[in-house]
């Protein structure tokens, strides 16, 4: 039985080495809880290596819906929160989880739909009117339904339109309960209207015959905010690194990098940080 | 563990005191599914030579062997090894070979070495090699045990049972599935073991084999011992009707 014991011991040793591996390398990092739109559009992949090259601090991004990102940050599982749902962000700060909220950048939401446009909303500049028309036509609309920033925005527009979507859920109003990209895939599959942020749409690779039908309404403005998690909740080295990240992304270099990021020649995000705002 | 008659956590016997003979059984009783398989059997295994247990199929011979080794526990009665309950520490002193050998999924050598629990690995390897050589299997030491022929497998099982130098060796119809040449090889090994002083209990229903090997005969029928006699006496003049009927090849009907 000695042979078995030896086999078990060496197996355990190997397993420990492999398991222990990640703890030994790459200790200088912070975690950013962010949204799928910033990751799926490719912005963060472009932005963050610049910061790392300059400071040696690695930035690890967990991209989930705004609602989940905020919950994760509340659990202390992140150093920076980068999302787009102003009211929820301000509540996060007011509850003592974050230091202060800063405007970071904006883009806008658009409503995309099939070329056939069954509800005839194409060319409308009034988002609320367009939604009312979709509801009146019982045209299929795919919603994120996941408590994300985009979802919150969409619900506020339905409210303004006086449409009770919860009553229509499962009929023409379909909640996918998933991220922006997954919802676009689903919506395109069933020929549904979808509200998406412009950045995700431009970078999206599976557009089919879908195109932008509604855009340019002020009500579709999409503001991103960035918050550093309360230092009292962070491990000590992370505090300085997080501060460095905040300074960089809100400063001239970070803002310029955001403005410079383009997909297919189109700028996706517009920096608008005003420190101390 | 079902039927765990051998207490696995029994305190080990004092060092050096590995004696199991005499093995005594008193008033053994075993029932399965309402049938009495062993019915008030008492016997003693001791001394030298080959004791043969004979009887027709279903007489309870194999079950009796399992009771003597402690693999089964009786519903009533008791088995003692040298006056004490069977225990795991003395198991190496009791060898048992089944009708169909159970070989480990290892080489022939490793199978024998496995039975040797004491000593360094090198020491056990050496002793296992010697046991294989005695069984005429030295050239197959490295072969996987389970691809050997039926006769070789049974010789290997015998070599494995003999390697720890047991005081008593119990054999449960060891030649039942073998051709005559293979059976003869097994019988040779049994005689060798007897010559080295190992007490042997051989269960068989083969009258010719019993005649060739047996020093004394215990005849069992229907779970009961019906006759015990020196080999010569039994074969020349069986005292019981059942024994006589069996030797004459007649069907036994109660």
């Amino acid at each position, binding site marked *: 039985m000695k042979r078995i014991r030896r086999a078990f011991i060496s197996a355990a040793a190997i397993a420990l080495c492999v398991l222990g591996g990640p703890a030994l390398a790459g200790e200088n990092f912070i975690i950013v809880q962010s949204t799928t739109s910033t990751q799926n559009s490719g912005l963060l992949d472009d932005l963050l290596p610049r910061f790392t090259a300059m400071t040696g601090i690695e930035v690890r991004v967990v991209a989930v819906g705004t609602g989940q990102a905020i919950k994760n940050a509340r659990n202390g599982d992140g150093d920076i929160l980068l999302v787009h749902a102003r009211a929820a962000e301000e509540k996060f700060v007011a509850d003592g989880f974050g230091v202060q909220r800063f405007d970071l950048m904006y883009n806008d939401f658009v409503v995309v739909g099939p070329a056939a446009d069954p509800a005839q909303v194409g060319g409308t500049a009034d988002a609320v009117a367009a939604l009312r028309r979709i509801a009146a036509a019982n045209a299929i609309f795919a919603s994120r339904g996941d408590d994300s920033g985009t979802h919150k925005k969409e619900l506020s527009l339905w409210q303004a339109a006086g449409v009770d979507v919860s009553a229509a859920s499962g009929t023409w109003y379909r909640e996918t309960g998933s991220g922006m990209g997954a919802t676009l895939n689903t919506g395109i599959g069933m020929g549904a209207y979808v509200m998406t942020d412009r950045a995700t749409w431009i970078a999206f690779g599976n557009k089919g015959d879908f195109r932008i039908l509604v855009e340019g309404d002020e009500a579709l403005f999409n503001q991103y905010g960035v918050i550093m998690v309360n230092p009292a909740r962070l491990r000590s080295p992370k505090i300085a690194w997080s501060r460095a990240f905040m300074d960089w992304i809100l400063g001239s270099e970070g803002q310029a990098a955001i403005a410079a990021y383009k997909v297919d020649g189109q700028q996706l995000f517009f920096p608008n940080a005003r420190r101390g705002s | 563990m079902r039927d765990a008659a051998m207490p696995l956590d029994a305190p080990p016997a004092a060092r050096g005191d590995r004696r199991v003979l005499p093995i005594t059984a008193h008033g053994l009783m075993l029932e399965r599914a309402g049938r009495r398989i062993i019915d008030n059997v008492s016997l003693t295994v001791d001394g030298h030579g080959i004791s043969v247990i004979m009887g027709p199929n279903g007489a309870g011979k194999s079950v009796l062997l399992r009771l003597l080794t402690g693999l089964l526990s009786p519903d009533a009665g008791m088995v003692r090894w040298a006056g004490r309950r069977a225990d795991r520490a003395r*198991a190496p002193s009791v060898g048992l070979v089944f009708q169909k050998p159970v070989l480990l999924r290892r080489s022939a050598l490793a199978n024998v070495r496995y039975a040797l629990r004491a000593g360094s690995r090198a020491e056990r390897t050496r002793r296992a090699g010697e046991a294989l050589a005695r069984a005429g299997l030295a050239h197959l030491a490295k072969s996987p045990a389970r691809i050997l022929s039926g006769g070789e497998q049974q010789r290997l099982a015998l070599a494995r049972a003999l390697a720890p130098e047991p005081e008593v060796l119990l054999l449960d119809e060891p030649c039942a599935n073998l051709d005559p040449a293979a059976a003869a090889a097994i019988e040779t090994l049994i005689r060798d073991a007897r010559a080295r002083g190992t007490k042997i209990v051989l269960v068989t229903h083969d009258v010719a084999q019993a005649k060739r090997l047996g020093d004394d005969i215990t005849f069992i029928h229907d779970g009961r011992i019906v006759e015990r006699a020196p080999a010569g006496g039994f074969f020349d003049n069986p005292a019981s009707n059942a024994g006589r009927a069996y030797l004459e090849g007649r069907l036994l009907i109660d």
Partner: protein
Amino acid sequence: MQNFGAAFGDAFRLLGGFDPALMEIILLSLRVSVTAVFISALIGLPLGAILGVSRFRGRAAVLVLLNTLMGLPPVVVGLLVYLMLSNAGPLGPLALLYTPGAMIIAQSILVIPIVAALARQTIEDMHAEYDEQLRILGVGRWGMVATLLWDARYSLLTAMLAGFGRAVAEVGAVLIVGGNINHVTRVMTTAIALETSKGNLALALGLGLVLLLLAIVINAAVMGLRATAARSAHA
């Protein structure tokens, strides 16, 4: 669907070019899942063997539970591990969340019941054959467990393969506890999910083909080993 043709094209281009980003993801997938299977074997095989040789009151209930756990939803496991490893959870100070270690833990929890349940069946069958022989040789319960594990080693590879298949293919648990962080916790399945959500369906499918290929290679290697063992009647 022109996606299929494009998917094969993408798969071969990625593999043929030894795309470093892809290699990193493949290696991490292997490292995480192989380690998880190793840990699961260390725990699950002895557990299955002990269940295979033991008879005790409530054993049937334990087996029902074990077989049920084979179907644990990965998302649920991911959530449980997240709650344990979160900074707000009891194991937060270990700082394992969003590391490969967290993914290994989650996958181990998914794989242990599979390895244990399949090992239990294999060992129980072999125990029926070996029990009397080992007892007559004076082997105790732990020695019996060790002997059965060793002699069943080639059959048990199948149990480990089943566990590996589950580990390397699941996405729900590693996404939650790993976070799909580029260069840190991005594995094949989370990369596929990400490319799907970006609408890069051909690339996602291409990655899926690479994953399939990887699974085929590993399965073939293990089955080859088993076949070798079967020739010596060891399996």
